[in-house]
C-alpha cells in the first residue's frame, strides 16, 4: 500500500513549507495544496488503506467510505475557499497553523482506529490554539490558553476512554461504539467537549470571536464538525444525543439575541446548528444520518460565508460590535449581498442550502414522533432566522447609520465569498447533487408545496415579529456589555479555587508543615539533649497530674518548684564524665549477662 498517500499528509507536511515561500509563489502554493489533496482523495478507492502495524495494533490512516467522504469533500472545499479568502493578508503563521489544523481534521475523519484518531484530535487542538493566538492581543492569548485547557482536558478524558475501551474489547478499531461499558462513556464525553455540548460549549463562544479574521473562518469549519463526524460514526442512535442536541439548538439563540459582538452571535448560532446535527445522530435512522451529513456539508459553507462577511467588515472597519457598525450596505454592497445569502441559507429559506438539509433532520424527528424535540427544533429554526438571518445583516449593513464609509472588500475575499454563496444557492436549488454523496440512498423530497409554504410562513412571521418589535423599540438595543456564560464556572471558578488554595488550604498545609517539620523535630531535639532529665520532668508532671489530690500542698509545691528549676537550666549538666573503670565494669556486666543468657538458652534448647 505504498502508492497511496493518506489524505491528511499533503496538508500537514505542506503546512511546514509555507514560511519558506514568499509572495506570488506562496499564494500559488497555498491555493494548489488543497486542490492537490482533493485530487489525491478522489483517486483513492473506497476501502481501508494505509495500515501500519504498531505494537499489537493496526493503525489505519485511510478508511474511505461514504460517511467519511462527505466530510472529506467539504473540508477540502472550505480549506480552499478560506485560503483564497485570506490570501491577500499574507499571514504566514496563520496559513501554516490553518493548514496544519485542517490537515489534522481530515486525518481524524479518515482514521480507522482510535489511536491515530486521538493523535489527530490532539494535534487539531494545537493548530487551533495557534490560530487563536495569532491575533496577538492579551484577550486572544488568554482565550487561547482557556481553549487549550478545555480541549486538553477533553483529550485526556478521551484517552482514558480509549484505553479502557481497548482493554474491555481488545480492539482499537474505530467503528460503532455505542454506550456500553465505562470506556465508551469516557469516549462519548471526550467527543462531547469538541462538539460543544451544553455547559461544555463555552470554549467556542469564548475563543472563536477572539481569533483573527482568517483564523475564525478556519476554526468555524473543522473542530465541531469533526466531532459531529466521530459521533455519527460511533454513537448513531444513542438517545441521549437527541436531548443533548435539542438543548443545543435552543439555548444559544437566547444568548445570541443579546450579544453585541457579531462574530460571537455567529458562534452561538454555530452551536445551534450543530445541535440539529446531533439530534440527527441521536435519532439514528438512515434519513436522520443523511440529514446530519447533509447539514454538516451545507452548514460549513454558509457558516464560513457568514464569518467571512463579518471578517470582511472587520478587515475594512476594524470593528465588529453591533454598537459600532451599521449602514455598511452603502459602501460594501457585495459583501452585504453575500452575507444575506449566508443568512438565508442558515435560516433555511427555500432555494437556499439550509432548506434541503435541516428539514431532513426535522422530518426524521417527526417520523419518530419526538414531539418535544420537534417543537424545539421548529422554535430554533425561527430563532436562528431571528438572530443569524436578520440580526447579523441588519446590524452590520443596515440599522442605524454608523457614518462609516469604507471600501468594498478586497477582490479575493469577494471571490471566496461569491463561490461560497453560489454553492449555498446551488445546493438549495439542486439538492440532488448533495444527496448523491450522502452515506445512504436518499428518498426525501424537500420541495413539496406544503413544506415550502410552512417554512415560508414560519420565516416571514418571524421577520414580522422582528420588524414590529424593532419599530416599537421593544427589541433589545445593543449594549456594550459582556454576557456571562458557562465559562464563568472556570473563569471565576478558577479564582475561587485559587482563593481556596491560598487561604484555608494554604493555612492547613502550613499547620501540617510546622507540626511535622518544626514542632515535632524540635521536641525530639529538646528531648535528646538530656533524655534523663526530660523523662524526670515528665515523670514529675505526670505525678502531679495523677496524684495532686492525695499529695499534701507542700509536696505539690515542692515538685512544682523542682520542675521549674530543672526547666530553667535545662539541659543542665547533661554530659556526665565517667572514669574508664566505670565503663569497664559496665562492659564486664554486659558480657556476664550475655554469658548467662547463652548458657541458660543452651540448656533450654537441649
Amino acid at each position, binding site marked *: 500500500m505504498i502508492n497511496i498517500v493518506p489524505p491528511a499528509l499533503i496538508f500537514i507536511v505542506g503546512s511546514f513549507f509555507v514560511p519558506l515561500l514568499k509572495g506570488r509563489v506562496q499564494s500559488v502554493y497555498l491555493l494548489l495544496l488543497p486542490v492537490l489533496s482533493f485530487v489525491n482523495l478522489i483517486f483513492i478507492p473506497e476501502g481501508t488503506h494505509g495500515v501500519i502495524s504498531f505494537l499489537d495494533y493496526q493503525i489505519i490512516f485511510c478508511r474511505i467510505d461514504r460517511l467519511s467522504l462527505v466530510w472529506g469533500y467539504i473540508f477540502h472545499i472550505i480549506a480552499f475557499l478560506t485560503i483564497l479568502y485570506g490570501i491577500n493578508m499574507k499571514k504566514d503563521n496563520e496559513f501554516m497553523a490553518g493548514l496544519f489544523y485542517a490537515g489534522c481534521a481530515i486525518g481524524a475523519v479518515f482514521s480507522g482506529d482510535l489511536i491515530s484518531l486521538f493523535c489527530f484530535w490532539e494535534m487539531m487542538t494545537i493548530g487551533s490554539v495557534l490560530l487563536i493566538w495569532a491575533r496577538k492581543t492579551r484577550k486572544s492569548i488568554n482565550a487561547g490558553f482557556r481553549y487549550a485547557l478545555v480541549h486538553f482536558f477533553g483529550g485526556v478524558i478521551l484517552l482514558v476512554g480509549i484505553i479502557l475501551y481497548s482493554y474491555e474489547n481488545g480492539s482499537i478499531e474505530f467503528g460503532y461504539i455505542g454506550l456500553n461499558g465505562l470506556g465508551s462513556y469516557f469516549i462519548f464525553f471526550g467527543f462531547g467537549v469538541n462538539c460543544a455540548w451544553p455547559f461544555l460549549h463555552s470554549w467556542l463562544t469564548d475563543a472563536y470571536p477572539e481569533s483573527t479574521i482568517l483564523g475564525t473562518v478556519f476554526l468555524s469549519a473543522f473542530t465541531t464538525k469533526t466531532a459531529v463526524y466521530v459521533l455519527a460514526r460511533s454513537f448513531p442512535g444513542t438517545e441521549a444525543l437527541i436531548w443533548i442536541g435539542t438543548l443545543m439548538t435552543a439555548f444559544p439563540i437566547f444568548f445570541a439575541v443579546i450579544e453585541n459582538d457579531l462574530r460571537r452571535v455567529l458562534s452561538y448560532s454555530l452551536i445551534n446548528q450543530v445541535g440539529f446535527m446531533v439530534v440527527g445522530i441521536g435519532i439514528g435512522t438512515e434519513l436522520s444520518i443523511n440529514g446530519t451529513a447533509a447539514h454538516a456539508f451545507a452548514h460549513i459553507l454558509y457558516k464560513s460565508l457568514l464569518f467571512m462577511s463579518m471578517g470582511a467588515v472587520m478587515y475594512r472597519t476594524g470593528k465588529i460590535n453591533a454598537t459600532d457598525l451599521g449602514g455598511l450596505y452603502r459602501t460594501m454592497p457585495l459583501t452585504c449581498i453575500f452575507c444575506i445569502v449566508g443568512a438565508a441559507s442558515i435560516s433555511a429559506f427555500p432555494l437556499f442550502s439550509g432548506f434541503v438539509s435541516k428539514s431532513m433532520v426535522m422530518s426524521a424527528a417527526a417520523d419518530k414522533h419526538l414531539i418535544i424535540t420537534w417543537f424545539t427544533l421548529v422554535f430554533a429554526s425561527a430563532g436562528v432566522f431571528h438572530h443569524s438571518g436578520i440580526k447579523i445583516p441588519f446590524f452590520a449593513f*443596515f440599522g442605524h447609520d454608523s457614518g462609516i464609509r469604507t471600501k468594498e472588500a478586497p477582490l479575493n475575499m469577494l471571490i471566496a465569498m461569491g463561490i461560497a454563496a453560489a454553492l449555498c444557492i446551488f445546493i438549495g436549488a439542486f439538492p440532488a447533487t448533495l444527496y448523491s454523496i450522502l452515506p445512504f440512498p436518499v428518498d426525501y423530497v424537500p420541495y413539496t408545496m*406544503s413544506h415550502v409554504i410552512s417554512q415560508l410562513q414560519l420565516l416571514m412571521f418571524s421577520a414580522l415579529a422582528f420588524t414590529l418589535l424593532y419599530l416599537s423599540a421593544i427589541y433589545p438595543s445593543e449594549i456594550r456589555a459582556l454576557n456571562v456564560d458557562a465559562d464563568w464556572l472556570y473563569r471565576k471558578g478558577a479564582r475561587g479555587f485559587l482563593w481556596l488554595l491560598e487561604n484555608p488550604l494554604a493555612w492547613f498545609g502550613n499547620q501540617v508543615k510546622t507540626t511535622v517539620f518544626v514542632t515535632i523535630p524540635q521536641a525530639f531535639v529538646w528531648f535528646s539533649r538530656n533524655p534523663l532529665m526530660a523523662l524526670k520532668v515528665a515523670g514529675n508532671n505526670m505525678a502531679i497530674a495523677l496524684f495532686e489530690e492525695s499529695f499534701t500542698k507542700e509536696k505539690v509545691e515542692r515538685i512544682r518548684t523542682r520542675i521549674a528549676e530543672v526547666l530553667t537550666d535545662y539541659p543542665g549538666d547533661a554530659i556526665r564524665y565517667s572514669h574508664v573503670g566505670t565503663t569497664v565494669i559496665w562492659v564486664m556486666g554486659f558480657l556476664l549477662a550475655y554469658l548467662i543468657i547463652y548458657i541458660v538458652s543452651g540448656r533450654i534448647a537441649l
Partner: protein
Amino acid sequence: MSKKYLFDNPKNIKILLTFLFGSCLVLVIINFFVHKHAHFSWEEWSGFYAAYGFVACVGLVLAAKFILRKIVKRSEDYYD
C-alpha cells in the same frame, strides 16, 4: 456626503415593509388552498407555522431581554 443610497429614501423602506406585510398576508391566504401532508395533527391547522413563528420570536426576544440579560449582563471588563 450628499450621495443618496437606497434606504436613505423613506419611500423605499415603506415599499420593503409593504412587501413584508403583503407576503405574510398572501402566505396565510395560500395556506387555505394547500393540501397538507403532515406528521402531526396541529400541522394541518391553517396558520400554525405563522402563529408559532411569530409567538416564538416575540417570546424569544422578551425572554432574552427581560430575563436572560438581567441574569448574565456584566460590564465589559468583568473578567479583567
